[in-house]
């Protein structure tokens, strides 16, 4: 097991390197570039362009630019954002708490809803409850978040005026946990309603498969209580596919929700990334991409390891 993890980690290194080279190349190939924002100004001259290119190190050959970024990145210097002149680590540090608050809440809410609903629908297959849940989750699953988010804003923010329209807190007010929570409700609901759907469907399908297995009958024949049969014998096995899905959600805790953050004016990682993308702010983009690709690789590994823990039939080789 230890050797397996180590080997996977070693294999990840060239993969991550390849990802960073590819993302660097794609960023550089994107038309526009970081100086495009200056060009709208009629006073901006060719001389200014050359000067800024030099100041930002953009006049060096591409391999040199890449290697110098990689070198400083590995030693903890992630560079400065072109537009904000702030260290990339500071920029990420400012947004990460907001994104973590949002996405961790979503993570918990989704699991708390998906597990009981998924199990119940499977146990009561084709009941009214099952039909209602299947219909509803399918509807939310097919709803784009940008639309759902706007709809929630219109209904709960504008018409009923129960909840604020966006942001993380009332500007200018002192820190207030109630105010924070009120701001959290709509964005969490937007993402959760969509995600719950997919998790419920996963769990329902794999629960149905599990409860048809022979060992379930054996467990019942032993005289085990139904609760124990369902939770320990059925759910533990049925949860395996869900673990993969959940483990792959982990990078989202860092990356944030691009669309939802945009709609609700949530100052998180998703907006940082989107803003940086529009400004071709290479240091910021490369920093975020490096972290998120690392997290994706690691969470894949985590999913595989968790698989082995949950299902001893799986062998690592």
């Amino acid at each position: 097991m230890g050797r397996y993890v180590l080997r996977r980690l070693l294999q990840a290194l060239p993969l991550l390197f390849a990802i960073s080279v590819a993302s660097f190349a794609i960023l550089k190939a994107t038309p526009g570039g970081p100086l495009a924002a200056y060009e709208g100004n009629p006073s901006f001259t060719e001389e200014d362009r050359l000067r800024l290119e030099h100041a930002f190190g953009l006049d060096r050959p591409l391999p040199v630019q890449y290697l110098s970024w990689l070198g400083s990145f590995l030693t903890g210097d992630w560079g400065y954002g072109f537009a904000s002149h702030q260290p990339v680590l500071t920029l990420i540090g400012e947004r990460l708490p907001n994104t973590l608050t949002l996405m961790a809440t979503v993570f918990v809410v989704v699991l708390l809803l998906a597990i009981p609903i998924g199990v119940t629908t499977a146990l009561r297959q084709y009941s009214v409850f099952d039909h209602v849940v299947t219909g509803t989750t399918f509807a939310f699953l097919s709803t784009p978040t940008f639309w759902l988010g706007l709809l929630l804003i219109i209904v709960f923010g504008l018409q009923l005026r129960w909840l604020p329209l966006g942001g993380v807190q009332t500007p200018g007010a002192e820190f207030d946990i109630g105010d924070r929570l009120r701001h959290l409700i709509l964005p969490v609901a937007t993402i959760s309603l969509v995600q719950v759907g997919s998790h419920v469907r996963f769990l329902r399908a794999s629960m149905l498969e599990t409860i048809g297995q022979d060992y379930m009958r054996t467990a019942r024949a032993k005289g085990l209580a139904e609760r124990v049969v369902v939770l320990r014998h059925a759910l533990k096995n049925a949860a395996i596919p869900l673990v993969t899905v959940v483990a792959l959600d982990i990078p989202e805790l860092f990356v944030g929700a691009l669309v939802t953050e945009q709609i609700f004016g949530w100052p998180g990682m998703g907006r940082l990334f989107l803003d940086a993308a529009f400004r071709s702010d290479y240091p910021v983009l490369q920093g975020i991409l490096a972290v998120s690709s690392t997290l994706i690789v690691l969470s894949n590994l985590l999913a595989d390891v968790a698989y082995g823990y949950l299902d001893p039939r799986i062998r690592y080789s």
Partner: protein
Amino acid sequence: MRRLAIALAAFGLVIAACGQPAPGAGTSAAPSATVAATASPTRGGTAIVAIWQFPATLAAHYANQTVTTIVDNGVLEGLAATATDGQYYPTLATEIPTLANGAAKVSTDGKKLDVTWKLKSGVKWSDGEPLTSADIKYTWEIWMKDPKVNNRTGFSEIESIDLPDDATAVVHYKSVYAAYPLNFFWLMPKHLLEKEADISKTDYVRRPLGTGPFKVTEFKTDESITLEKNPNYRDAGKPYLDKVIFKSVPSSQVGLAQLKAGEVHAMWNLTEAQTPDVEKESTLALLVVQGPTVERIELNTAQNKEYTDPNSTHPVLGDIAMRKALLYATPKQQIIDKLLFGKAKPGSSPVSQGWAAYKEPQEGYDPKKANDVLDAAGWTKGSDGIRTKGGVRASLTYATTTGDQLRERVQQVLVEEWKAIGVEVKIQNQPSSVLLAGSCTGKDPRKLGTFDLLMYASTPEIDPHSTILPRYHSKQIPTQADCSGQNYTRFKNPEADKAIEEAGGTLDAEKRKAAYAKVMKALNDAYVIIWMYDRANIDARVTGLQGWQGNTWQRFTWNVQDWWLKK
């Protein structure tokens, strides 16, 4: 989903790109006589202003976003600014140096310029330190020394600055730099920054120190910026407000929703299409200010190909009859009424505002005349209704920025109109990051010459020379060797060239105005640009927020020290 989000955001970006900063935007003491009291101002309170773009930095010398100016107006000041009629007024200076008052002097050979500025006495930075003439010199030095400044306009024309005393600075220009009054639009504090090796790595980037009515007390990225009253502000009775908070909203639609819900007091930058929504609310008010920005369609007179030869001729647009016909078949007023809700004026020239404004209108909408002109010039309609002449089909491409709803609608109207006179037009839009990239390396089709018809907006500075020279002098046609010019239509007129050069060599406003008028007339006589409409800057507020005034040359926060909240 992700793509849609990007499209949504791109829409915002496009709006940002059209609304170039009015380069004369800044804070000032409002010319006090104009602040006619409708009611006596109440003191205190916090005004919240929604902004749908968030400043990456508040350091004016690094910034490249319009929204930075919106915030900086409350914090930073310079020596002078522009009133709505286009006249300069002193901010931190005692008066505007002019030839008449002797504070501006052209050297005897007519090649250099000396300008003497005197500072108001007793002005302090918001940290309590005195403002001195050394800050003027320091501002110039930083602008020339710091490699990350946005541009060096004006500063690069300065040879040296003498400081005879603490209140006086004599600026020696290498050339007759006519836009000198606005050169020092933002001053920088020497005492705070002189020891810094790299200002971009200091707190100044987010909390710049100024002499303005407010100071930055909190900067929360993508969330809010809080300004609090500057106790050292030179006008003791002002500002009336205790605080101004700029609150980030994800889009102008959400900003408008928050304004209606009472979560914010004002919002920056509405589209024309949003105005009816505000007008029907009795608690809201619009501020529509005719700005200098003009939306235009530029017609390429040279061949449509990469690094086009300026002396080549466009097979279709090379014919002036064709260019005339396109203008005659452009219903400007109808477009303004239907698509811009009447919140714009038909365009007539690149300089629609200020002392050198040229307002002679282009000929109006007359499709019959368009047909006649084309018939007379030998463009005959084929079986499909499209005209040809000598085997050349009247088929053109029409480019603008992608994702801009208003522009796309205008395109649809014009494609139909032009088809009716026998000209086939195909829409070929590109993202603003390419279409307006501004460089050959960025594949800007205007620079390369790879367009037929191209629609975009541009904002001239208060001094027209910085618009007229790079855009309409024949030496400013971008080529592979020198891509810097902005004469995108490849307009060549020796008379116009001469007039531009004359205007650039004198400070005599009357002579300059006449010379520019000559250039703009020649331009319109060549029918190379269809001036679509002069765009307005539109902002909105709740009626309880008082003291607002429009200014053509500055953004709406220019007189934030005069704002007050009705209790």
